[in-house]
């Protein structure tokens, strides 16, 4: 694989690996809460942050984190209220976010060379060393929260009412999870893009669940699957010149499909053996 002798490919790979490692670590909590698509929504809101950054000439990643975090907190408050109109409030946030972002990025078109597609669908091949440093720091924070606080985050995502009765700081943990979601989405923006972030948060978790029995094992297996899919995806994209973000996600989905089909075939074979023996 001579393609990896190029520095830009090495940086792309490292960025994708960091993303692959942290996305399911956060995503597993969203899936547990049956809120799998919230990552998608936060990604939409982050685009406004990107637009603001480009328009004002500040680092888009920074403004994206801030706006995404504010949006995630708003989403969490909507969820806590639990009213039927929550659906509409979320739609307003998500579509306001993405249209705000497209609008602002278009306004800044004269000032920067920023490509909207790059933010929406990722551009790992243009990852700079500074980008990697930022991703490593933010990614480290995400891992610290999702791994070190696992027992508490598990408790509130598994049975929030029980956690409240037991005296756990439910509100603070929920807000922390919301902000960490925003940070994860922003880190993943470079490798797979804001529109595909949710896929990397959810698909590896869904794949791992096919074979695991517990929460901890699901989390570790999902992280391993995600890192593998990210590496393979970047490799294929480098060698065959395909869209890298989409390639990573398609590899992840192919992994899910293969495992699901494989398990189905094994079970079918076992069943036929039992019937034949009877």
């Amino acid at each position, binding site marked *: 694989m001579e393609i990896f002798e190029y520095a830009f490919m090495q940086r792309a790979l490292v960025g994708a690996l960091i993303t692959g490692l942290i996305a399911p670590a956060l995503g597993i909590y969203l899936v547990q809460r049956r809120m799998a698509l919230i990552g998608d929504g936060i990604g939409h809101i982050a685009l406004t942050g990107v637009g603001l950054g480009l328009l004002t000439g500040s680092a888009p990643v920074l403004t994206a984190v801030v706006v995404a975090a504010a949006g995630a907190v708003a989403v969490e408050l909507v969820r806590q209220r639990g009213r039927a109109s929550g659906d509409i409030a979320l739609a307003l946030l998500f579509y306001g976010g993405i249209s705000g972002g497209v609008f602002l990025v278009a306004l800044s078109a004269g000032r920067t060379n920023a490509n909207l597609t790059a933010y929406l669908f990722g551009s790992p091949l243009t990852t700079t060393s500074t980008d990697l440093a930022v991703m490593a720091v933010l990614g480290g924070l995400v891992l610290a929260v999702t791994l070190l606080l696992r027992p508490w985050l598990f408790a509130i995502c598994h049975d*929030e009412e*029980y*956690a*409240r*009765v037991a005296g756990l700081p439910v509100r603070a943990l929920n807000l922390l999870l919301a902000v960490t979601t925003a940070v994860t989405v922003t880190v993943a923006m470079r490798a797979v893009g804001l529109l595909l972030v949710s896929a990397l948060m959810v698909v590896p978790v869904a794949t791992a*669940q096919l074979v695991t*029995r517990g929460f901890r094992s*699901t989390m570790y297996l999902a992280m391993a699957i995600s890192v593998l899919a990210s590496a393979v995806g970047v490799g294929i994209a480098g060698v065959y010149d395909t869209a890298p973000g989409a390639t990573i996600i398609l590899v992840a989905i192919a992994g899910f499909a293969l495992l699901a089909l494989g398990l189905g075939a094994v079970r079918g074979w076992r069943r036929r053996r039992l019937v034949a023996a009877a």
Partner: protein
Amino acid sequence: MSRTGRGPVDRTSPVDRTSPVDRTSPVDRTPVVDVRGATVAYDRTPVLTGIDLRVSAREVVAILGPNGSGKSTLVKAVLGLAPLVAGSVALFGSTGSAIRRHRHRIGYVPQRLGAGSGVPATVGEVVASGRLARRGLRPPRKADREAIERALAAVGLAERTRDPVSALSGGQQQRVLIARALAAEPDLLVLDEPTAGVDAASQDAFAGALRAFAAGGGTVLLVAHELGPLQPLVTRAVVIHSGRIAHDGAVPEPTGYHALPGHDHVHPHADTDRAGIWGPGWD
């Protein structure tokens, strides 16, 4: 060891439930649960009106009542899950935000596993989440692991620690919820319809776990539709009807066919029926 509510809360020393309860020292008179004039309303419809309920340490109180009487709401109000429109609830002698200090002493057993189960979880992981109330923010110690093992053993699920909760029967899942509450070594166990729709083997397992808990000096508050194997444990029955207390005292004798398990009290009583489990004058 502070279980009486006086002095600073000690979360770190292990609660000793193996030695016999010392009945010679003066019993602390602070009620474990003290509800005064509690009124709960949803959208201005009163569900509970003017409830006065005092539960002392070591009592096993059953809250009984027909469907829709407000008994589950009463328990939620005690736990702080339902807002009070009037009145007050004191737990371990504290009201309002001061209850926070005592939250690790409450073990709550809801009627069924919460909805947040998009990802598999093992029996051990769910029970361990109950230990967090006593663990606070510190890393796990041997005492924590042992408490979790004891809780699992108390409900007879020790061999299923590594099994996913979804693979268990309804009754076994209920046992997991009891073990989760016991893992924190609480002083007060609050159970919401623990035997509803549960197989006989699991009902016997809980009765055993509750008996051991009460024998160790714990206080129990349980909402039940039918007592079944729990009846011998109950020291006092509170009957709720239409949001008010209709009876508070000895466990009423079930009469005639009302005593059959699975019997559902939705029909009116004829005048000729002897005053049964719901007291005279119902209907």
